[in-house]
């Protein structure tokens, strides 16, 4: 497993197809294949909106509601980002997905020496509430939900979001945020971790517990198979690891004495869409079913709303190429098709220029148009789960289900996801496959158009987003202003209260909210956590 392969004879006829998840594809499927795979239409399918939800979580699919579009957006100062948000909304985007710069993701202020060169580069800079106020100014937060793509300090950002929406006069039961808030996947794939595993999971528990009572429309976690797949794992592992991560967070909240049906409907997923189209569609269908089963059988959930796998199916970054970048526009369209056929609630697409830099407005709008064309022009809203009943798709969905269960079992045998991450088991598995994949591409076994076949030799000119050095200076100047103008004694006291709460293992969210309202900075709050929790040490995987 690791690389999708085509076995061909010398006449270029395909003898076998092996998907990345390790499943062999046959040339022709019949009813017998479905039966051999154990497919039972009553048990495996039912109707859309009914258990086990293989066909989707809404009875009417996209007829009742189109998907939400949320391009990953953010750069420079919050003011610059606010302008881009408004541009995307004016062109029909229906949600936000905020990109933060690396200092913010790592809990550092813009004037920290470690932030030098990174302020506002891959996302917008946030130091204090002032920045959230600037970023969300004139955004109808009761209508537009905000994804906050941040993990180690997601609790701080959620508090910022609440403080901002309150300040703008939105009721807290009307606003909806989706902080990404999935630290285990950061430890596996994306690397923006700060604190050790245990307190990190505890912070996630705090946000879930708090949202349950205070922010009922907020989805406090978005569990990301996405980045684990980007880092190298197979589609089956993507789902298995995401579910085992989710189980870890579930158990953290159960440990606090809450009942599963009181909180789990706030869980959402972030899953990837690149690769073999059929494998992705089968993956999404199998995932919905297994998630419902996981909740029902493993955790005894009774409320139907607890069983729904909701998510953003999008991105596709690793499928995109630097060579012949315009090809990524076409790839993106196919990947978005996979998301639609897979029944995504929300989507986003990496833009064609992202192998070079963060997207230009033109590139971001092309991604948005891709979704709009799918939904408005070619019939994606016509009927729910259009591939259901296909001999091939139903067989493959059953086979994917088996593969996912196998992978989940391996993690269970290791003692759960926390152990699997602390020992580096998943990281090793992911890195090994990333290497296999790359070797496959370089040997030409795995075709990437424009990279190892149909190459053009000449490099194409791409219009690049320009990083504005001035925005870092502006950001630092504003941070200094905030520190001058706020009541520093109150801030110091509130930070002390936060520290005491963290040490006493009380839920830190109410304390963070007070700190944010008093314009304490991200760096100051993170420093408190570092003092109390310490820092994560990466396991050595080589």
């Amino acid at each position, binding site marked *: 497993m690791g690389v999708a392969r085509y076995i061909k004879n010398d006449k270029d006829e395909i003898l076998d197809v092996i998907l990345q998840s390790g499943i062999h594809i046959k040339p022709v499927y019949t009813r017998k294949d479905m039966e051999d795979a154990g497919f039972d239409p009553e048990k495996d399918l039912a109707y859309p909106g009914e258990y086990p939800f293989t066909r989707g979580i809404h009875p009417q699919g996209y007829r009742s509601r189109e998907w939400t579009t949320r391009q990953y957006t953010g750069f420079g100062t919050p003011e610059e980002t606010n302008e881009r948000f408004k541009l995307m909304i004016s062109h029909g985007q229906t949600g936000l997905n905020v990109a933060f710069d*690396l*200092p913010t*993701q*790592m809990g*550092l202020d813009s004037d920290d020496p*470690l*932030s*030098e*060169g*990174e302020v506002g*580069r*891959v996302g917008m800079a946030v130091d204090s509430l002032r920045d959230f106020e600037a970023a969300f100014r004139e955004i109808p937060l009761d209508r537009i939900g905000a994804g906050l793509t941040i993990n180690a300090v997601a609790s701080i950002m959620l508090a910022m979001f609440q403080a901002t929406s309150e300040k703008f006069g939105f009721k807290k039961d009307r606003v909806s945020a989706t902080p990404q808030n999935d630290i285990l996947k*950061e430890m596996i*794939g*994306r*690397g*923006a*971790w700060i604190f050790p595993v245990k307190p990190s999971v505890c912070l996630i528990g705090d946000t879930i517990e708090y949202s349950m009572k205070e922010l009922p429309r907020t989805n406090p976690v978005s569990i990301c198979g996405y980045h684990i797949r*980007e*880092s*190298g794992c197979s589609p089956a592992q993507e789902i298995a690891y995401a579910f085992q991560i989710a189980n870890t967070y579930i158990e953290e909240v159960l440990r606090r004495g809450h009942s599963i049906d009181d909180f789990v409907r706030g869980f959402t997923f972030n899953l990837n869409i690149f690769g073999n189209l059929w494998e992705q569609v089968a993956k999404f269908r199998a995932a919905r079913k297994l998630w419902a089963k996981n909740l029902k059988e493993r955790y005894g959930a009774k409320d139907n709303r607890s069983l729904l796998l909701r998510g953003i199916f999008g991105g596709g970054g690793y499928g995109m*190429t*630097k*060579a012949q970048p315009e090809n990524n526009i076409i790839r993106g369209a196919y990947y978005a098709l996979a998301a639609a056929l897979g029944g995504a609630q929300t989507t986003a697409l990496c833009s064609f220029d992202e*192998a*070079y*830099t*963060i997207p230009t407005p033109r590139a971001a709008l092309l991604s948005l148009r891709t979704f709009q064309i799918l939904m408005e022009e070619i019939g994606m809203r016509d009927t729910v789960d259009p591939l259901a009943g296909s001999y091939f798709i139903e067989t493959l969905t059953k086979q994917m289900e088996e593969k996912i269960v196998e992978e989940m079992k391996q993690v269970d045998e290791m003692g759960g996801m926390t152990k699997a991450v602390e020992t580096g088991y998943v990281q090793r598995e992911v*890195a*090994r496959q*990333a*290497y296999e994949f*790359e*070797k496959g591409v*370089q040997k030409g076994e795995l075709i990437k158009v424009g*990279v190892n076949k149909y190459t053009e030799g000449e*490099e194409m000119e791409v219009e*690049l987003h320009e*990083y504005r050095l001035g925005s870092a200076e502006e950001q630092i100047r504003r941070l200094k202003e905030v520190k001058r103008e706020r009541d520093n004694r109150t801030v110091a006291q509130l930070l002390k209260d936060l520290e005491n709460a963290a040490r006493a293992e009380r839920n830190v969210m109410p304390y963070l909210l007070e700190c944010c309202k008093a314009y304490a900075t991200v760096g100051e709050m993170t420093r408190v956590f570092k003092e109390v929790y310490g820092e994560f040490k*990466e396991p*050595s*995987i*080589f």
Partner: protein
Amino acid sequence: MERKIRILVAKPGLDGHDRGAKVVAQALRDAGMEVIYTGLHQTVDQIIQTALQEDVDVIGLSIMSGAHLPICEKLMKKMKEKEFEDATVVVGGVIPTRDIPLLQKMGIEGVFPGGTPFDESIKWIKEHIKQRT
């Protein structure tokens, strides 16, 4: 016996996207080099210190965030200050073509943007180290 080439694969700065660094580390190892991987979130000072301790021939930086110019500038300046100029510095990651001459001017000898075949960077390193010794 010929001494194996020692190379430090380093992730400077705050970016945690390490798929590329880990893939390249495995390829260099399979090509017979001794590879030391720093792990994430390394400061320039930490990288130089590890490079000195491990007595490496090559420092390979992997940078995806777009901050390659300021990071490389800082590293080269500090290496000069410490009179640590025996190691060859190479960089890979998301590097736009137009920045390659700027990096070379700073003294970064090899630039390998994402998608560079393993064979190409391995061959470059081997030949380059041979010439230096």
